[in-house]
């Protein structure tokens, strides 16, 4: 018997000694009873309820998406934006109902003017079957310039509130500027 065979047999013996008793533990038996066990009258009912809930959610999501405006990626223009012409706004946090001490009343928000989305250069356009999400964010204008957007800015520290169109891969495809605040107003009202 070679040295390798001897060592193999020793390892086999050690492994057999370390093998735990072959009785399924309580967690495994509970899993079995939950999945395959008989006498589970609630299982079918729960499955039916879950199916109804999933179907309801799917229908509502489908309807929401069907009514959402679809922005064709090919129609996204890339105009040069004069940032100075936009109305500067100070970015202040929304007053919380707790801080004001009374329940905040919802005022009807006037619809914002629909500015066009600007495509970020060198990004692949969305395919017709791809969905995009629009996320509103406060971002520095320098980041937009670094991304390749043709912006003319006098204040390099300015920030913009913008809608970002994000593709299914998580990359931003286009940007729509909502408002711009200069660096002074942002620093005083972070």
């Amino acid at each position, binding site marked *: 018997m070679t040295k390798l065979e001897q060592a193999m047999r020793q390892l086999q013996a050690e492994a057999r000694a370390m093998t*735990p008793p072959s009785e399924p533990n309580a967690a495994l038996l509970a899993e079995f009873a939950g999945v395959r066990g008989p006498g589970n009258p609630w299982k079918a009912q729960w499955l039916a309820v879950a199916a109804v809930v999933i179907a309801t959610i799917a229908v509502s999501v489908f309807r929401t998406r069907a009514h959402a405006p679809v922005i064709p990626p090919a129609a996204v223009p890339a105009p040069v934006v004069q940032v100075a012409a936009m109305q500067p706004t100070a970015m202040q946090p929304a007053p919380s109902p707790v801080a004001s001490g009374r329940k905040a009343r919802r005022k009807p928000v006037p619809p914002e003017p629909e500015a066009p989305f600007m495509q970020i250069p060198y990004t692949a356009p969305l395919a017709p079957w791809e969905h995009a999400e629009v996320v509103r964010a406060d971002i520095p204008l320098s980041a937009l310039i670094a991304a390749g957007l043709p912006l003319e800015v006098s204040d390099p520290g300015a920030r913009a509130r913008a809608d970002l169109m994000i593709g299914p891969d998580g990359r931003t495809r286009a940007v729509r500027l909502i408002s711009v605040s200069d660096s002074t107003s942002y620093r005083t009202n972070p």
Partner: protein
Amino acid sequence: MSWLTDRNGSRRLLESFRNGDREAFTGIYREHHPSVFRFALHMTADPVKAGEVAQDVFVWLIHHAGDFDPARGELGAFLTGVTRKMLQRRRSDEQRWVPFDDALLDGRQRAQGPEPDTSDADRLRAAIIALPERYREVVVLCDLEGKSYDEAAVALDCAVGTVRSRLHRARSLLTRKLQPDLPQPDLQSCEV
């Protein structure tokens, strides 16, 4: 004829298990848990990890009992294949997030290797763990678990010839590793 009876018995057991018979599941567990555990133990050299993997395998079996096709092989080989997939998934998860301390310790251990005054079994265990996975699997199945080449081929989803060639290569590597006088092979850089 006894093997035929055994095979039919296993099929009946499996059918009862699929129909929700708890005793049948216990029977399958008793029959196959030791080999699943030992395979995981030899592949990981960690009894705790091997126990968790064995548990995962049988939980998976409870949920996917219909995936086993008796026409393609024995349940033991099928479960070995499932164990192999579980180990691969676990390893890829572990490789994604390695604690810094563990990474340092692992590197140190790898650099030092086993102690010089350890037994042949310890040296062999360290050498098996250091083998590339494709070699480690055939050594564990054929040499440590005593499976035939055919059973190993079913479990590893490869040809019998591949099992033979990998086993031959793995044995020669392990033999050299157990003889410190010979120049030591770099096990991680071995190719088929």
